[in-house]
């Protein structure tokens, strides 16, 4: 059997060969392998310079200053650092946080943990397309609100939110801090740290053709936001995140971000066309419901619910031909229907019987046609086995 067509780029992307080459240059004895903290000698200095060049490149790619970049092991760590780090600092001023029901678990689970510690958390329900209306945010703000955490691009349906509007609301509300999970943004849509007005932004490399296991938290200097560190030790990253900085990882992140940002305009147009072809093809199979407004979502993500089939079987039936998922990689193992789609008002059956197509660099028109055909066959077969024609539709 041929290996299936990869259409799960929102879960993770292959590392760009140019990125892999840059990483390889920071590993072995003939490369820059020193410890960037070993400032006493040339091996350490060389690594330090690579790390700082990477920091500058990441900053440039996202419209930040180099000293606003705190490298982490990924967006999960960045989300945790932002949420616990910002709330630890502002605890005296209040113990209320606002987020949305459609956030990634790396935001929701820290919020749940805050609740266990006695904090109050408001979970906003977005509109049917996954957008939190700024007015709703404004209405939820309280005198004791210290942090708002709302994502930029949703990982399941690709909805792009108006972060600048959130920032304006927070700004008016005596400067409550805004954290934005932008793990899915870089290379998928435009993102500019300073322009968006957020205080804290989480990034991940592996959604943008960089390596897994590295990300960053952007910490706004202009806004003067303060966070408490969570990982203590050697004092790396200006004391905000101790632990040896992995040169090859941050170099990979920098190379990947630089490439995807440069290539995004053209790639966005290409993927948007492929996505619309994919949607038309899927729609023709009948009983398909598109999740997320076409104009308000990134071109790289298409999320569709299918009537008359059970979700797990749909996924299993298409798996030999295409690699897709029902939702985020983190929740697809649990088999629960997507909490994101349920938050948008889909019933359990439709939420469960949904596929997230994550288009990416390698995606060709052939891949899209193969996906349309594979889903069509699976639907026909499962609907027949399920007696859907006779009973359900």
């Amino acid at each position, binding site marked *: 059997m041929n290996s299936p067509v990869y259409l799960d780029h929102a879960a993770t992307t292959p590392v760009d060969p140019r990125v892999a080459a840059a990483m390889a240059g920071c590993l072995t004895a003939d490369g820059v392998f020193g410890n960037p903290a070993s400032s006493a000698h040339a091996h350490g200095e060389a690594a330090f310079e690579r790390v700082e060049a990477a920091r500058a490149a990441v900053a440039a790619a996202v419209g930040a200053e180099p000293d606003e970049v705190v490298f982490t092991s990924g967006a999960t760590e960045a989300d945790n650092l932002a949420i616990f780090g910002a709330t630890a600092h502002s605890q005296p001023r209040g113990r209320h946080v606002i987020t949305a029901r459609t956030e990634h678990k790396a935001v929701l689970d820290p919020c749940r943990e805050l609740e266990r510690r006695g904090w109050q958390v408001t979970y906003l329900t977005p509109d049917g397309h996954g957008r939190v209306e700024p007015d709703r945010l404004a209405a939820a703000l309280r005198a004791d609100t210290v942090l708002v955490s709302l994502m930029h691009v949703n990982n399941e349906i690709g909805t792009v939110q108006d972060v600048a509007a959130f920032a304006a609301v927070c700004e008016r509300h005596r400067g409550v801090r805004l954290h934005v999970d932008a793990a899915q943004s870089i290379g998928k849509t435009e993102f500019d740290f300073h322009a968006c007005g957020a205080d804290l932004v989480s990034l991940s490399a592996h959604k943008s053709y960089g390596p897994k296991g590295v990300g960053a938290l952007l910490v706004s200097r202009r806004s003067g936001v303060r966070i408490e560190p969570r990982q203590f030790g050697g004092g790396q990253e200006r004391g905000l995140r101790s632990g040896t900085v992995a040169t090859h990882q941050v170099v990979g992140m920098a190379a990947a971000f630089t490439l995807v940002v440069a290539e995004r305009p053209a790639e966005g147009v290409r993927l948007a066309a492929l996505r619309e072809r994919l949607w038309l093809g899927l729609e023709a199979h009948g009983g398909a419901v598109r999740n997320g407004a076409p104009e308000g979502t990134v071109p790289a993500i298409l999320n569709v619910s299918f009537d008359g089939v059970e979700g*797990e079987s749909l996924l299993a039936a298409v798996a030999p031909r295409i690699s897709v998922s029902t939702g985020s990689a983190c929740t697809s*193992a649990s088999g629960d229907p997507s909490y994101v789609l349920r938050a948008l008002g889909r019933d359990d059956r439709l939420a469960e019987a949904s596929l997230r197509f994550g288009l990416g660099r390698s995606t060709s028109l052939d891949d899209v046609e193969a996906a349309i055909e594979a889903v069509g066959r699976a639907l026909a077969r499962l609907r027949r086995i*399920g007696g859907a024609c006779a009973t359900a539709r």
Partner: protein
Amino acid sequence: MRYSALTRRYFEAAPCAGTLEGPGILSGAAGSRSLGTWVRFDLRVAGAANRPAVIVEARFLAFGCPHTIAVAAWVAEQAAGHPVSAELPQPVDALRRSFDVPVEKLGRLLVVEDAWRAAAARK
């Protein structure tokens, strides 16, 4: 989800999927689509006097996860030649082991069993 080879095989081939029509067909269903699992069996039986009715042919329909479909398909396939009985060709627990069904899905196998019993009870 990882599926055993047996599960994958019966999920993919789904032998005996469909319905049977005509007089004397025993039909039974259980579960609910809106709760995620629904199964139906149709059995064609033949019985001479003084001999217990024997299943000649079985068909199933299933809306559910791959384990549910695979097990229902296997049951329908095995049924032919067996006497009509409330018992599945293999007890639920044995099926669970053969098809490597996670414990938390036990409820779904009970839907298969219920559907089978409902069909057999029509006799």
